[in-house]
């Protein structure tokens, strides 16, 4: 059972990590927090479901299409809503509230466009279960882990080995200096929101086939993504992944060995403990403290 | 009898030593100056004395209390007030309210007193207003008491910040470049004002770059360079001290 739980934990951890990555990238480039990631995940799941089941596209094509759409959505979102709020005298807390509003609207929108009942992905693979001795694993869990890992590796390569990625990191460290170097900081910010949305969309497609697609799937996951980001060190890419794994493992083990109703309590408890005792996280990111 | 005694105080930030084994004493009722080139560690020393930083080494004694390592509000409660290089007023509060906040440690009203408006709380608030207006009159700001402090001119804001500092009846006032950005007339008025502050029984330690102000105002000067105390003495002696000249102008001139 432990291995079974562990695989589930790693998959969840991967998702929390991807969300935490998204939060971190946005925070680093624009100093903002968004509460819409969970719902972006949900929309990504619904889109993937739509393309795969309703339009009968091959799974990889559905995945790609969803990612591209979420990417563009994130970019447009930053350029329109976020810019307007900040330009009109809004503070980061206004942005927070606006993203909360968006998340509420998206939930309702999803229910209207699709339905408020749980939708199931049709099986992606020909086999229903992979068997390794006594362990039965749904191949969607494994593919989910693979997709999550692949995303993280691609992101790492992008941020560290491409010109745009390096420009983004520069803009995140010091936007004034970056501007002076000719880096388009404004584009960087849009890009960061775009990447975060894409990551959330991918997360949706990973978890959709495993747990089903429904309107409220993103709410709690979105909050746990924060836990991942904080535990690892808010803003630190690798910290988010580690933090995600920690949250995934704690939650899954708590559900497996204690009780599934306690798992959320324990996850939030660990979250708060970290914020209070070590807000800089495992990788010691700088935070503002009074 | 020294009012404040700084012994061997060192302040390190990682690999950088901002204050290097500084020892100095200030006598009560003196007006002392703290000078040195930019980056010499003057503001850092202020921050250590005021409790914003805990010194890496050394001790600070103020009137028989050991104050190094205390929180800034505790240092203030013991009788040390400060101003800032960049004006740090409470910008959305009125001029009068800024002074009233400055007097916080001398008041005693708590939640119960405030909510129930007990007679002692009302008396305290009334005395507070009177005293605060009195302080404003000293610098001619009394007619702007109801003005939001961010609307004041630069010179007025500087004066207000000093007033806020003396509102708590401190024994020692740390002034960080109070003359910055002032014209000659304003500087003369400032010097007069600081002398008046001393007449109230407040000891003053001033960081200043304007040598005329330092020479005209202070009775004893400490000179920092690269965090070390390189000279101290009467203003006239400091002016001709070769170490001091070297610090400001580079190698022997």
């Amino acid at each position: 059972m432990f291995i079974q739980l562990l695989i589930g934990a790693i998959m969840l951890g991967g998702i929390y990590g991807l969300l935490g990555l998204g939060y971190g990238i946005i925070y680093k480039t624009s100093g903002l927090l968004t509460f819409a990631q969970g719902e972006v995940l949900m929309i990504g799941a619904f889109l993937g479901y739509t393309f795969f089941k309703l339009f009968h596209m091959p799974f990889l094509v559905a995945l790609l299409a969803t990612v591209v759409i979420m990417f563009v959505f994130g970019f447009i979102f930053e350029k329109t809503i976020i810019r307007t709020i900040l330009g009109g005298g809004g503070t980061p807390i206004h942005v927070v509230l606006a993203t909360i509003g968006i998340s509420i609207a998206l939930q309702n929108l999803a229910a209207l466009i699709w339905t408020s009942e749980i939708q199931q992905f049709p099986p992606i693979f020909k086999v229903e279960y992979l068997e390794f001795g006594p362990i039965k694993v749904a191949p969607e869990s494994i593919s989910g882990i693979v997709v999550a890992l692949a995303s993280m590796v691609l992101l790492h390569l992008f941020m560290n080995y491409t010109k745009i990625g390096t420009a983004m990191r520069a803009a995140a460290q010091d936007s004034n200096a970056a501007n002076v170097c000719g880096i388009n900081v404004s584009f960087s910010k849009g890009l960061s929101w775009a990447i975060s949305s894409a990551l959330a969309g991918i997360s949706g497609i990973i978890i959709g086939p495993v747990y089903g697609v429904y309107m409220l799937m993103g709410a709690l996951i979105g909050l746990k993504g924060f836990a991942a980001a904080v535990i690892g060190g808010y803003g630190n890419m690798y910290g988010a992944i580690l933090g995600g794994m920690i949250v995934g493992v704690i939650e899954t083990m708590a559900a497996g060995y204690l009780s599934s109703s306690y798992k959320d309590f324990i996850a939030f408890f660990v979250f708060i403990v970290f914020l209070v005792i070590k807000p800089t996280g495992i990788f010691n990111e700088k935070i503002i403290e009074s | 009898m020294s009012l404040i005694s700084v012994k061997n105080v060192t302040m390190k930030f990682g690999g950088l030593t901002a204050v290097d084994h500084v020892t100095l004493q200030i006598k009560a009722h003196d007006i002392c100056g703290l000078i040195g080139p930019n980056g010499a560690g003057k503001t850092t020393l202020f921050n250590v004395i005021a409790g914003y930083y805990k010194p890496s080494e050394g001790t600070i004694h103020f009137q028989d209390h050991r104050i190094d390592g205390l929180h800034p509000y505790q240092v203030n409660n013991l009788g040390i007030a400060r101003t800032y290089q960049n004006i740090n007023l409470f910008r959305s509060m009125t001029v009068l309210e800024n002074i009233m906040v400055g007097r916080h440690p001398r008041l005693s009203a708590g939640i119960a007193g405030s909510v129930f408006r007990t007679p002692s709380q009302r008396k305290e608030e009334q005395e507070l207003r009177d005293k605060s207006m009195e302080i404003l009159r000293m610098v001619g700001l009394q007619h702007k008491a109801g003005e939001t402090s961010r609307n004041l001119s630069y010179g007025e804001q500087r004066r207000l910040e000093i007033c806020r500092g003396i509102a708590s009846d401190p024994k020692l006032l740390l002034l960080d470049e109070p003359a910055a950005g002032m014209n000659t007339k304003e500087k003369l008025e400032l010097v007069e004002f600081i002398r008046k502050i001393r007449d109230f029984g407040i000891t003053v330690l001033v960081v200043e770059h304007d040598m005329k102000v330092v020479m005209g105002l202070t009775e004893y000067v400490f000179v920092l360079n690269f965090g070390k105390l390189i000279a101290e003495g009467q203003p006239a002696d400091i002016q001709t001290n070769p170490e001091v000249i070297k610090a400001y102008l580079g190698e022997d001139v």
Partner: protein
Amino acid sequence: MARYKNWLISLAFILVFVGLPALLGSNAYLMLILSLSGIFVIASIGLDLLFGYSGQISIGQAAFYAVGAYTSAILTTKLGISVWLGMLAGGVLATVFAALVALPICKLVHMFLALVTIGIGELTHQAIINLPDLTGSFTGVRAIPMPRIGGYVFNVSSYYYIVLALVVLSLLVKQRIVDSRIGRAFIAIRENTDAANAMGINVTYYKVVAFACSASFTGIAGALYAHYIGFISPESFTLDQSVLFLTAVLCGGMGTFVGPIIGAVVITVINEAIQVLGSYQMLVYGIFIVVAVIYVPEGLVGVVKMIQRNLLKVVNRVAD
């Protein structure tokens, strides 16, 4: 002279609100909205003290709301104590809870404080769900009694006067706090925490006091809610509720006297108004929040002030 003017205006308003039920012809639905608005106003005052005055963001006020509600509900239903005592206990417990919680978290600021308050809110929500013997978990607490004076038992109509009295009391207490040494300390901490510290203000102490005061108001509001509706369950004490409080305070205008009042009334009214939209209501609500944040970042109080200023300009021009 100005002080008497304020007293007279306040008295006039109070009289209007006292007489309102008679004017409205005891329309039960409107009375519901008025009472709910009043309860919301008290909670909003709590958040305004915390966020508008001491500058500490909280998206977890539902936790204090819940402590007040459940404390009073459980004490009155399980132990049969008087509703007045129950409400008082609710307020006290919420205050103590907030003080304990605030101590370790108040050193955080801005986004991190927002996150930890969300965590506290969620934790409280989970605690309610996971303590079925105490709270009844999802089943909730039912048959929460109405308060009584002597032989008279209040009903959903006359409850309005209790709410009104407490709203007036809350506004009075808030003004007194704001206009005192405590309030000045709060504002100083909000404006410039380091300078406040240097002015002799024990920042940690006052931050905790701010949380505690905030919870007093919010806890009493929760207790009022419990006894008004007669039934509470974990669903009413989620992040959504905390968001409602924040929206009310931001949209009304923070750090002002009327801001929280306007915000609370507007949010309550809108909450009721969108019910007619059926399955579209949350969509409209979400869009409303975004629009409000974009067009009224200073809150409606800012709009009122702007209208005042423009009116003054017009009047001056006409007078010339």
